[in-house]
């Protein structure tokens, strides 16, 4: 059957490994222009057709994953139906000749009588491996015991875990979302925006950012970002909590992560307005959106807004306020007031120049808001995969056969042989034989 061959598995895995490389070399989810610049229009068309700009979600990549799943399912079902009887037998059988012919066996001679030795061996074996089946063949006593039959299931657990993991990923991508939102200190919102499409999503509750704080090391590298958040439901404050990087808030299936921060638009600025004709300077607090009358009734000034970064002739001037100046009898014009460069507006050489003296800095916190109902399936898959690999790699179905037969002088010969489901040599056998030998000496 086509879908149940390890050969197909290998082809699929080779294809998955090889094609995965593409997405690490070609930038993912970039703007079209980037691809055209990098590779030219022709190649970009190909990139679009094959979805290589988002290749891990491209149809052909998902098809490969689907093929892998079918391969695993068909193969596991078929093999499990074959080995089910071996794993859960109604009655345990063992093939004596298979053991006796095996190269993997050791002999021990004991001076004691066979029936006595057989009893000792039985007790020993049941301690080593579990319940012993005792049979007699002519004057030879057969003792059989085994352990770890269930470990044959390990490899099925590994394969099932791959399915569970991919199922969880599918559930997450269908029913979950990844969104982000910026909240200024003191503000609140219940609406977040899907990260790729920017489609708004309304939450069942409202998030208020009380405060954002960033701490730095002496070296200047950031040490900690912290937001104090209050959750508001049905108009009432539910609770207040801090989130930090690596310490998100999880509430009602929604996860809220600290992801970025920045300077928010402040409420007001303390401004100096200088009349360059008289040299007179007035200092006053101006709220954003407020219009103030200029001295001498010469016109008005409107403080329009604020930008955390202001590009001016290719230079970043940093935090900058913006305003509109309307002089009597002239058209209004806009001016920029970079906080770090107080003389900036003076260089305009107007009648009035404006300086931002100080302002109360407010941060906004950048939150990542996600919902992933599939994550528990993925985590279950993770757990099963680790357990399954552990069982498959380090455990096995061991079976042991001891035969005790009389020798001519009344002493006994013990033959000890073992098998494991993992193939290879049973390295334990020699060690166990030595243990048995000392045990038999005691009588």
């Amino acid at each position, binding site marked *: 059957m086509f879908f149940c061959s390890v050969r197909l598995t290998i082809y699929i895995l080779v294809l998955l490994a090889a094609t995965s490389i593409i997405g690490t070399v070609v930038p993912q989810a970039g703007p079209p222009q980037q691809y055209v610049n990098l590779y030219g229009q022709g190649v970009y068309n190909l990139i679009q057709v094959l979805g290589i700009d988002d290749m891990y979600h491209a149809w052909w990549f998902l098809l490969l994953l689907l093929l892998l799943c079918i391969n695993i399912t068909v193969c596991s079902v078929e093999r499990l139906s074959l080995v089910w009887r071996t794993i859960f037998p109604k009655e345990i059988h063992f093939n004596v000749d298979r053991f006796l012919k095996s190269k993997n066996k050791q002999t021990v001679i004991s001076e004691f009588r066979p029936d006595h030795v057989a009893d000792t061996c039985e007790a020993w074996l049941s301690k080593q491996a579990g319940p012993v089946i005792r049979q007699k063949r002519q004057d030879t006593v057969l003792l059989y015991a085994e352990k770890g039959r269930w470990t044959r299931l390990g490899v099925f657990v590994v394969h099932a875990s791959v399915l569970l993991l991919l199922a969880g990923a599918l559930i997450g991508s269908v029913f979950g979302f990844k969104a982000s939102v910026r909240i200024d200190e003191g503000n609140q919102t219940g609406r977040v925006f899907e990260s790729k499409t920017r489609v708004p999503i309304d939450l069942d509750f409202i998030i208020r950012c009380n405060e954002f704080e960033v701490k730095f090391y002496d070296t200047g*590298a950031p040490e900690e970002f912290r937001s104090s958040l209050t959750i508001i439901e049905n108009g009432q404050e539910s609770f207040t909590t801090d989130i930090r990087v*690596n310490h998100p808030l999880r509430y009602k299936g929604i996860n809220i*992560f600290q992801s970025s921060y920045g300077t928010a638009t402040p409420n007001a600025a303390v401004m100096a307005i200088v009349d360059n004709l008289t040299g007179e300077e007035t200092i006053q607090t101006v709220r954003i959106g407020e219009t103030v009358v200029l001295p001498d009734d010469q016109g008005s000034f409107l403080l329009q807004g604020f930008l955390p970064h202001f590009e001016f002739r290719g230079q970043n001037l940093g935090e900058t306020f913006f305003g509109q100046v309307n002089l009597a009898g002239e058209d209004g014009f806009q001016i920029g007031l970079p906080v770090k460069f107080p003389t900036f507006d003076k260089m305009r050489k107007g009648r009035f120049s404006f300086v931002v003296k100080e302002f109360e800095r407010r941060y906004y916190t950048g939150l990542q808001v996600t919902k992933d109902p599939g994550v528990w399936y993925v985590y279950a898959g993770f757990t099963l995969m680790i357990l399954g690999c552990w069982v498959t790699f380090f455990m096995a179905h061991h079976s042991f056969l001891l035969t005790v037969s009389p020798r001519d002088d009344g002493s006994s010969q013990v033959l000890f042989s073992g098998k494991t489901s993992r193939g290879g040599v049973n390295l334990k056998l020699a060690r166990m034989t030595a243990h048995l030998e000392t045990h038999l000496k005691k009588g």
Partner: protein
Amino acid sequence: MNSSFALSATTFLYGLAMVCYIGSFAFKMKNLAKAGFFVLSAGFVLNTAGLGLRWVESYQLGYGRAPLSNMYESLVFFSWTMALLYIFVELKYRERGIGVFVSPLIFLAIAYASFDPSISAKINPLIPALKSNWLIAHVVTCFLGYAGFAVAFGLSLIYFVKPRQPGKDSVFARLPAWEVIDELTYQMVMFGFLFLTIGIITGAVWANSAWGKYWSWDPKETWSLITWFVYAIFMHLRLMRGWHGRNLALVSIIGFMSVLFTYFGVNFLLSGLHSYG
């Protein structure tokens, strides 16, 4: 003693161990390999001490973090995991010949950390994203996995050096038999695969707790998955007839190349979330 002295001494001892192993092989001097094992073990003790001291020193600097957070520390730790695994393998299987191929890897990792001027040995504080207990679990398991693959790689090389039936007096006679290499390579790949699996998983759980996404196809993540695929291919090929010996060893070598690319190549050639291997 401080960590930097301990780690310099470690580098020296690992280098000496390598010389012993190779000398023992080239000149058929059995005792030299024994000396190699002794020197390597001494190096391992110092390596452990060096890592421990670095941890203590980070507390003295007020940062208090595990010594697993930059390229320098990861290379030193990689040497440590390889040495640990190799010592275990030599004690368990008594095949000294493997040391000829593994001790150079142990030496190279720590020597690269010490001698490449672009790799800084400075103890820097952690940025917020790296402050998590998952960091330790993730790095330790990944590097145990890499160590398994490194030893498997060393073993696989033997196939291409040693003829199947070397003459009695040949220098190759003392290297392990092909059947033994086959079994041991497989053991090491299983060990590596289990720990790489745990490493990828702890990384995913960590990413989920830091960024809300357990998988984001970051180049490093993707390359570790590619590595994982290569070794899954290795294990499935082994089930097919005709895939033993050199053919399979080649897959193990490709797998280790993929490990190296995940570790170094991604940092130098591609961009992403990880600050180092």
